[in-house]
């Protein structure tokens, strides 16, 4: 009996074990956000405290770096989402010359190692005389660049599974092209755009390798963590990690719930 049950559920159990494994470090991040370390040089759990949560900015320079990351993240998300959405519409809805080189142009940034993209951008900035101006704007340019492809792919897959008979129906009912777009097309594609924006923000917020090469003296949150890792990490960074995780989980789960409700209403 038991042997048979185990045989039938072996794959499922192994799968759940693998999934659990991916959560071990996350659990450590959450745990360490409540840590009161005995010394800055030893990274282990010593005593429970809420201090990191009540005063996250106590870690010197962290909140400034965090603010910079959020600012860059929002702007890069806005830029990449708008441009990438337009491109996704072009790829799905329009015919044009050079389709396969365009596909390659959009794919390659996702397949290139960050160190190569970062170093070639730096080479460009240095060669064109911007070596002294590395900072906010060069980081922003880089972030829009590497987020773009992910936006195109995400929105494109939403558009490709799109039933265009709905649009034809709207047109048959005398909706103008603009009305059709804003009342039918856009609401249907919106979840894809929102997903792309969320993905862009987390890619931008989390990027270290490309940013570090093109940042000059500007410090973002990952750069702050990297710098701190050399001399001992303040526990407050784990508070930021935990908050990021919770916020994104809430957004993703509520999106899922909303789409289930909509489906339920339609059927």
């Amino acid at each position, binding site marked *: 009996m038991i042997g048979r049950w185990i045989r039938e559920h072996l794959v499922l159990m*192994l799968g759940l074990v693998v999934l659990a494994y991916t959560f071990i470090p996350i659990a450590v991040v959450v745990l360490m956000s409540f840590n009161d370390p005995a010394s800055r040089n030893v990274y282990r759990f010593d005593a429970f405290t809420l201090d990191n949560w009540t005063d996250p900015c106590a870690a010197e320079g962290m909140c400034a770096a965090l603010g910079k990351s959020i600012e860059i993240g929002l702007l890069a998300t806005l830029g990449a989402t708008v441009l990438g959405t337009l491109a996704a519409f072009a*790829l799905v809805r*329009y015919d044009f010359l050079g389709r396969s080189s*365009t596909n390659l142009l959009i794919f390659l940034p996702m*397949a290139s190692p960050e160190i190569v993209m970062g170093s070639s951008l730096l080479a460009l900035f*240095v060669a064109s005389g911007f070596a002294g101006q590395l900072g906010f704007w060069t980081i922003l340019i880089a972030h829009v660049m590497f987020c773009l492809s992910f936006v195109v792919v995400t929105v494109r897959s939403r558009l490709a599974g799109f039933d265009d008979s709905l649009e034809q129906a709207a047109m048959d009912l005398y909706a103008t092209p603009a009305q059709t777009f804003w009342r039918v097309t856009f609401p249907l594609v919106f979840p894809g755009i929102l997903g792309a924006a969320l993905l862009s923000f987390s890619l931008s917020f989390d990027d270290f390798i490309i940013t570090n090469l093109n940042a000059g003296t500007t410090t973002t949150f990952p750069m702050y*963590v990297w710098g701190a890792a050399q001399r001992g990490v303040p526990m407050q960074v784990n508070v930021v990690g935990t908050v990021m995780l919770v916020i994104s989980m809430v957004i993703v789960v509520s999106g*899922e719930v909303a789409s289930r409700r909509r489906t339920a209403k339609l059927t």
Partner: protein
Amino acid sequence: MTRRTGAVGYLLLLPTALWLILFFVVPFYSLLATSLYDPAGSDFRGYEMTYAWGNYVDVVQAYWQPMLRALWYGGLATVFCLVLGYVLAYTIAFKVGRWKNLMLVLVIAPFFTSFLLRTLSWKLILADDGIVVDTLQFLHLLGEDGRLLATPIAVVAGLTYNFLPFMVLPLFASIDKIDHRLIEASSDLYANPVVGFFKVTWPLSLPGVVSGTLLTFIPASGDFINAQLLGSPNQRMVGGVIQSLFTDANDYPAAAALSMILMVGIVAMVLVYVRRAGTEELL
């Protein structure tokens, strides 16, 4: 859906194409140019273009070890990701029923906590007086003064962990498309589950295996964060060398030459893949 023709398509595509050409393609030209500068130049004196192809010979001689190490660690991590990722993707596609979406969210959830923080967590988990080392020592799998940090094991483990979602998502997309009746048919024809897997499921999931392998191997072999935080200088990978040549040593020509070698290798791999699968499969 029929595709419309006309100028609107080009206009919609233009900003993205321009941005990528200006800030992704053109930089490779700058990188190539930089890699051929006179190696005697510096930030202060400026660089001179001397078509110094010798830079490439120099960096290969100086850094062949971190280069091979990057291939080796990246390759090992990819194999481990394939094994773990296959089990997970198969479970999500076939074994969890209506929990599929939730499971997929859980797979990418770790993505939303900083990459650096996750890697630092591994440093804590694998620490010398941590639970993993203590357990392995108790089981005599690790000697009394054996350790995991600052060994290749820790670096490969970190890489495997950090790039697992890149493997799971394409694998899932492929496995999820497999018609379950084909697997049932193989068992009706007296194939045992193992034979059925290797004759039916595995071949049908190959597109996912190939793109997952590519998407895992490329970032893993270029990464230096894991090698730096979990390893020692003996585990330095080529990405770390490029980074420190750029930011610490300011040896731009050498750094650019190493970067070019890495990129050419990657592009070659992508092209082989594109020839087999076509560009529409990429996205």
